[in-house]
């Protein structure tokens, strides 16, 4: 769990880096998140939760700690959280990516003494191409499917990845549909200036799906919901798709290597950039990255209690 509780002067305050379910856990009160994360958090955890949004860069004092939120470039509203106590600075990265992404705030490098970094893709086999290239690949695949007279079913996590994918779709190719889990987040993104092509709900469709693009969360991959899109070519947009085994295991037709996490070189670049003397790794199989950093004289280790990671959100 990557939310942060600060204990100090009797304060316990859940600071949440972003609204993905493995980070934003229900059952706490008085959440503090970035301003653009707030509506997303409420969509995930309920409109009646107690939560507060804070502008990026604005410092607030909690007990002895000076706390500020900084864009992490992971999804809309995602933050790194900077905590300064007695002149010593910790930054908790949450999930992040330094690569450009048109659907969220750009990553900001924050100097610190201790950097708690995610390491989902902490191996050099993971390296991302520019997102425009991936958008082109997706559109070309969609075009091929239109010509073959079949629907295109693209799996992408409902918050973040789905919006990123939708933004890059070329609506001149055909009609675009999205699963119900994706829709609620679209107006929030639009309010922040992200523009989407026209995205319909399947029930608004004619029932003739050939040539359509359907974006859905991977959770419905094997569910009855997908059955109506007969003969669909199935693709998945995820960093895990960099490895063929991951695609073949899911019996997918296509894998698109589009990730909202830092790739190996992104991790190294950011870790170096923070100037931190101590690196603590979490959310991933970080042993190889830790060893690699140690061999280069960096004090790096796995954060206790961080498990192996299998999902990407």
């Amino acid at each position, binding site marked *: 769990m990557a939310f942060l509780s600060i204990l100090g002067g009797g304060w316990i305050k859940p600071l949440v880096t972003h609204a993905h379910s493995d980070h934003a856990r229900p059952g706490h009160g008085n959440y503090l998140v970035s301003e653009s994360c707030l509506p997303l958090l409420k969509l995930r955890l309920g409109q009646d939760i107690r939560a507060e949004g804070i502008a990026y860069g604005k410092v607030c004092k909690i007990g002895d700690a000076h706390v500020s939120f900084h864009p992490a470039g992971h999804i809309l509203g995602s933050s790194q959280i900077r905590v300064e106590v007695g002149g010593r600075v910790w930054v908790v990265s949450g999930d992040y990516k330094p690569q450009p992404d048109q659907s969220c705030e750009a990553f900001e490098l924050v100097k610190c003494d201790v950097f708690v970094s995610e390491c989902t893709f902490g*191996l*050099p*086999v993971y390296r991302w191409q520019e997102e425009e290239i991936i958008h082109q690949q997706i559109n070309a695949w969609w075009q091929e499917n239109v010509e073959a007279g079949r629907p295109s079913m693209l799996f992408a996590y409902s918050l973040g990845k789905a919006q990123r994918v939708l933004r890059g779709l070329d609506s001149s190719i055909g009609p675009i549909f999205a699963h119900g889990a994706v829709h609620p987040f679209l107006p929030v993104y639009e309010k922040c200036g992200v523009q989407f092509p026209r995205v319909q709900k399947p029930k608004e469709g004619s029932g003739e799906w050939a040539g359509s693009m359907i974006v859905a969360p991977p959770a419905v991959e094997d569910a009855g919901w997908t059955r109506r899109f007969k003969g669909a070519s199935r693709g998945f947009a995820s960093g895990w798709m960099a490895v063929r085994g991951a695609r*073949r295991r899911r019996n997918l037709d296509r894998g698109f290597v589009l990730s909202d996490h830092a790739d190996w070189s992104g991790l190294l670049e950011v870790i170096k950039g923070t100037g931190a003397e101590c690196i603590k790794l979490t959310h991933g199989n970080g042993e190889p990255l830790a060893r*690699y950093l140690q*061999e280069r004289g960096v004090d790096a280790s796995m954060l206790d209690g961080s498990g192996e990671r299998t999902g990407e959100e």
Partner: protein
Amino acid sequence: MARESVREKSRGEKMKGFSELFHDLDEMTKTGERIARMVNYFEQAPEKDASWASWFLAGNRIKGVVKTGELREWASQRSGWPVWLIDECYERVGDLAETLSLLIGGNKKADPISLSKVVEEILLPLAHADRSEKAEALKRAWDRLRPMDLLPFHKLLTGGFRIGVSRGNLCKALAEVGQVDPAIIAQRISGDWDPGIRKFEQIVGDERPEDSWCRPFPFCLASPLQEEPSSLGDLKDWWAEWKWDGIRCQFLNEENGGMLWTRGDESVGESFPELLNLSPHLPTGLAIDGEILAWGPEGMRPFSRLQKRLGRKEPGPSVLKKEPVRFMAYDLLKMEGVDMRTLPFLDRRKRLESMLAELPGGFPLQLSMPVESTDWEKLARQREESRDRGVEGLMLKRADSIYSSGRVKGDWYKWKVDPYVADMVVVGAQLGHGKRANIYSDYTLAVLDQQGELVTVAKAYSGLSDAELKEVDRYVRKNITGKFGPVRSVRPGIVFEIAFEGARSSGRHKSGVALRFPRIQRWRQDKKPDEVDTLENLLGYAQMGERVREDGTKTDDAGNLLLF
């Protein structure tokens, strides 16, 4: 009509090379699509490329191009990542060729390169270069290849070329290109041939007499018998014989000598000179199907003895004497150059018998005898003798069946004896490969010794459903207690029923026993780790097998196994 229009379209498409073919085949999930894609490639590829592509897709490889250890070292130099990190990546990716491709990256500005150029200018010279030349040549190769060329290139380099194309489907595609019978194609691409010499036209062209010269026919395969044998009808319509535990081979004889071909299309004659020496005594234009068996003066020996002969070319006199073999013949495919495969089985069998009857005695070639019975029940009882006889069970062949290419249900059945089973607990796990990369799918299994300690006896990979695999994977991840290279030790908690074909004592294994073909039969969720089988039981199975063979299966003066 429909196909014509597809061809029109493919002609209009931009020229696509072997790398594109490779990636398309790798991504396609439907057999029909794969075949169509191959047809499309073969129709537009340059002749030379098409020959090489057929050869590679048929499962051939250029051997000894580079050692994987060297490859990792050079990849480390190239990428700047330490070798241990490359190994970590390999563990995650589960495929060395793919790992290297992801790490090397490729040259985005390189021009497309044809398959025949890759072979002639890179792979073949590499195979003949010394170590330092190899390193240099490989660096130059990496500079010449686009990112998309790397994976097929590394696959050719490391030899493991599996992309979901069976030989049968390759034959179908080539047959469509040349409008010839897939069986003829199958024969043409079998065995040892040089794609640098053989023109593509000779692979897909019209049939010629030299087509069948000393190349094996596609093997006729048996289906497992999954119903009651009585469902096969009258026993009189069937031929039963023992299912031999050896190496299935076709023995071909032509004027300039004999050849032995395995089902894996390997020519193994050089390892068995005593069989090739039979050549002058046999008629030419001959093809017989049978099994190579380890066979001493006492009779048939276990399969493991045969391994002392495999892979050892031109064995010396002492090995020949200590580890003799025999060819157990059971079918006749060609006689005096005439294809016999469409004759009914009993006719082929009669010809085989009369041909072998003319041979003088004492040759290491003999006829597989029928297991005769009056009814299915009696035959079933005879089948129970299989383990004592050292055979795997019975073969049932329909008396009027032709010799088909591949597996045709209803013609040949293998009626194996039930496997041994034992409950074992998972004590170690390793990430799988290919489709199971990044899933703990390879398990180390243990049983209890006399002190009540768990002792490792086997490894098993297959047998679980996808859902079960996922669940076991989840358990493993939560219960890792240690790390030994790629193997994680796992807190004992999962019990599998393991099936295996046999046990033998082994000095090389710590447990003292080695199992043959262990695989997961089912997950015993009802059993706890302390309820697994004992090592004593497994050692008992091993001793049983050895005792039986020492007692000796009965043989006649010529060394033939006496069946009744």
